[in-house]
């Protein structure tokens, strides 16, 4: 989006991600209140608009989150759904309000409780009205098709893919918000239960519950609130996935490539300048493909990038410093907002035990959303953030 004025992040919040008995509204409220308080806001009527991303928990989810914060009545609350992109998209909407002058301060929240609202034991699929769904499509299988083709074309092995899980779990080892974390071996990843060949259980994001929230505002508001470490939003892009029923390269990702290109152009920041990245690593293969799609390395060099340590501490760009979806699990409506929250904390040097060193200056987030016949993904949301103090 073209910003008509500068937009900053005042404060963020994130809950722990794991299987929880707390419902989506309480999780959302916890993250939102944390973001509000860390923005030095002490009254319920300061924020001027709110967007709440959620995918599966029902109707008027945003109002349900904000009612007991006493924040319903004075402001519009808009509920945002775009499957896995919903949380990122809610932050995009809040940014849009501030960037266009509609508000001076807004909040974007992503929240989801999967485990209380969904019986486990089956895989996610797109809508039942979809032809592919009718023929048995599940999201794990669609990523497995990408993995299978990537392996066919490059000679990559399951052991190669497993390296992504090993890396991300290591990044999350000391992150209190992450669910699955710490040492896991390539053998353990490869030998875990097969879900959709070649993706084993430990290569798939868990079904978890959680929330993230981001308060965005103008420069004047940052001063008024007395925020010491404002983070600048250098770019915010949402795109819809192009439709194809024709042969295409699924080891690439048209929607991610287009969204990234637009983000780099609008922010004036290129992939070589990005210090940390949270990417849609719902499955190991996804992160590997996205190194290439986002231009962190050349097409076909994803494996080399990983093996050379370019995606971890001391490398070109630390990918998934919080541990990614492979460590957090993926409460679909929550993830996009939680990614942004955790990146802001990295830029501020607040991630004790899992802080990227030296403290990063530029952070990027990427989250796709859903699947349909003929699209790799229905939506993609990306953000570029930088330290502004």
């Amino acid at each position, binding site marked *: 989006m073209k910003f008509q004025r500068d937009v900053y992040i005042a404060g963020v919040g994130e809950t722990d991600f794991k299987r929880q008995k707390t419902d989506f509204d309480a999780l959302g409220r916890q993250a939102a209140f944390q973001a509000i308080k860390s923005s030095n806001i002490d009254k319920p009527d300061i924020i001027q608009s709110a967007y709440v991303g959620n995918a599966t928990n029902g109707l008027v989810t945003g109002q349900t989150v904000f009612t007991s914060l006493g924040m319903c009545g004075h402001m519009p609350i808009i509920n945002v759904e775009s499957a896995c992109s919903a949380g990122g998209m809610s932050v995009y909407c809040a940014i849009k309000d501030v960037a266009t002058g509609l508000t001076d301060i807004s909040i974007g929240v992503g929240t989801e409780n999967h485990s209380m609202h969904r019986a486990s034991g089956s895989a996610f699929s797109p809508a039942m009205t979809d032809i592919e769904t009718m023929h048995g*499509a599940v999201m794990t299988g669609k990523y497995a098709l990408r993995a299978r083709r990537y392996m066919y074309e490059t000679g990559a092995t399951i052991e190669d893919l497993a390296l992504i899980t090993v890396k991300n779990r290591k990044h999350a080892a000391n992150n209190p918000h992450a669910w699955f974390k710490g040492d896991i071996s390539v053998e353990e990843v490869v030998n875990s239960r097969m879900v959709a*060949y070649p993706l084993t259980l430990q290569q798939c994001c868990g079904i978890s519950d959680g929330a993230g929230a981001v308060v965005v505002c103008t420069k004047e508001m940052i001063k008024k609130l007395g925020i010491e470490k404002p983070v600048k939003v250098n770019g915010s892009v949402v795109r819809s996935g192009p439709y194809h029923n024709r042969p295409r390269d699924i080891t690439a990702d048209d929607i991610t490539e287009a969204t990234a290109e637009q983000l780099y152009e609008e922010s004036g920041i290129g992939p070589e300048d990005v210090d940390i990245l949270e990417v849609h690593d719902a499955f190991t293969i996804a992160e590997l493909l996205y190194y290439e799609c986002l231009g962190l390395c050349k097409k076909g060099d994803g494996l080399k990038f990983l093996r050379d340590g370019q995606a971890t501490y001391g490398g070109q760009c630390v990918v998934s410093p919080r541990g990614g979806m492979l460590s957090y699990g993926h409460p679909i409506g929550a993830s996009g907002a939680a990614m942004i929250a955790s990146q802001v904390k990295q830029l501020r040097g607040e991630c004790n035990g899992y802080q990227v060193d030296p403290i990063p200056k530029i952070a990027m987030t990427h989250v796709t959303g859903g699947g349909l016949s003929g699209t790799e993904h229905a939506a993609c949301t990306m953000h570029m953030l930088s330290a502004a103090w």
Partner: protein
Amino acid sequence: MAETKKKGKKKEKEPDIVFFHPDLFEVPEDGSAPFLKGYRCKKCNQIDFPKISPCPNCWGEEFEMVALSREGTVYSATDIYIGQAGMETPYVFGYVDLPEDLRIFAQFEADVETINCGDKVEVVEGIIRMNNDGLPLKSYKFKKINE
């Protein structure tokens, strides 16, 4: 009346012979080989599968059905061990590229670990899942061509 109802035998449900979408697939009654149905836009000549109306290319609204090639090449395939709710696993699906420059998502009539990128396959009629009554639902599938 009530007595009759109690005694009345519940009618057995017939297998569901209706394809879930009649625009997709044709199994000729004369026993000739089944085929997928492509749709050529009369305005811009683009062929689509499945039928999309209006034509996403030119918004034309008139189409001519064309029988698509029965044989294609596997672009990618996977074995599904954890599938959709209610679907028996494992099952195998993937993408098949047809000479009409179309890519078809389909289940394979195949055992796991038998379908690979680059395999030649042909379209057949098969059972893709059970319907809501627990009866078999038929549609198109692809099967490896024995070379």
